[in-house]
């Protein structure tokens, strides 16, 4: 067993895990933070994207032991302090950026990582950044639109598709 301790959404979290315990499993099973979804478990879909030390990673393809000592942020850490939705989350709601919602935690985490690197991305840059986030419902248009809106861009002229 390995002892791991990390900060998750600003709070200390620790536990004894097996070497093979994935970060996704540690978050969901040990910490009961089930907002991080597991879609493929093969590093293809991006439903499990979280931030480790500020960078987007696939939690299904990182060991909990590798995240020892890190700052981890999950979808549960994206709301504002008063519990209201954060900017990216609110934009997804306002612009209908989700249907079933399965991919949404990963989409929001990837979008937030993009906006921290590039606060005013073009539509093409958004689509490229989301290359590792698959959505089976929306056709991506409203996800892209929501992220443009979250960046403060005027999306009123973009038709809903």
């Amino acid at each position, binding site marked *: 067993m*390995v002892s791991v301790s990390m900060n998750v959404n600003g709070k200390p979290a620790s536990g004894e895990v*097996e*070497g*093979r315990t*994935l970060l996704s499993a540690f978050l969901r099973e040990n910490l009961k933070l089930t907002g991080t979804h597991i879609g493929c*478990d*093969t*590093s293809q879909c*991006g439903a499990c*994207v979280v931030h480790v030390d500020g*960078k*987007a*990673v*696939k939690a299904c*393809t*990182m*060991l909990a*032991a*590798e995240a*020892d000592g890190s700052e981890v942020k999950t979808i549960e850490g994206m709301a504002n302090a008063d519990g209201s939705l954060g900017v990216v989350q609110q934009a997804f709601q306002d612009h209908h950026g989700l249907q079933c919602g399965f991919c949404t935690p990963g989409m929001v985490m*990837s979008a937030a*990582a*993009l906006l921290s690197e590039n606060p005013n991305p073009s539509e093409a840059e958004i689509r490229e*950044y989301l*290359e*590792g*986030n698959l959505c089976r419902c929306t056709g991506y248009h409203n996800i892209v639109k929501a992220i443009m809106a979250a960046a403060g861009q005027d999306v009123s002229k973009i038709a809903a598709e």
Partner: protein
Amino acid sequence: MHNFDFVKPGTVADAAAALQGDEAQPLGGGQTLIPTMKQRLAAPETLVSLIGIAEMQGVCKTDAGELSIGGATTHATVEAEAASLFPGLAGLAGRIGDPAVRNRGTIGGSLANNDPAACYPAAALATGATIRTDKREIAADDYFQGMFTTALDEGEIIVEVRMPIPEKSNYQKFLQPASRFALTGVFVAKYADGVRVAVTGASEEGVFRWTEAEQALGSNFAADAISGLSVSADGMINDLHGTPEYRAHLVKVLTGRAVMAAA
């Protein structure tokens, strides 16, 4: 995935000692190895994580005009830190997989794995890189030995990769959109004393040099210089994404594009 012991040494010497153990294997960014272990195609008893080794991190230019890249440097770091020193390489690193893969995957892991469709092998071969391990230095021309096969011994660690910085270079990746690897990719590197062209994703033997194009481009560095050449489909990969003839055709098209885009 079978269970294993996890260790995270702070120096190459400690990592090399840990890798002496039975069934011990290095772990870079885990972007290939973790999925492989989930499929039980690999089942090490000890995983030796290399990401905490400071001497294996980062990118810098050496006095000899080479780009030195630590073996545990992520693709995202190469994209950022090589941008002004060696834009052709930064462009390659910035198009590997997707952002989350680039934040974890490392150059050492990519070269050790030597996937026939991986991007870094093309850059290493086209630049005539030196692969420095914990035991020796290996020239790229001797390092790649066919699909998923390299000159590395069991437990040998890629500590550093040194690439002579070309005057001009470019990598053209024809994306296989499902895997996000290269269906075929070509790296062209122009030096004062010649041109090197390396092709990935195409051959059943893994990455290779297209020497006819190197000669033609050496005397005239222009896309036209290769217009009379043709690439044989013999030994090219045949899968549902592309026939051998299609890949052979792509090699020539992508080489021309790389020459035109080289900067």
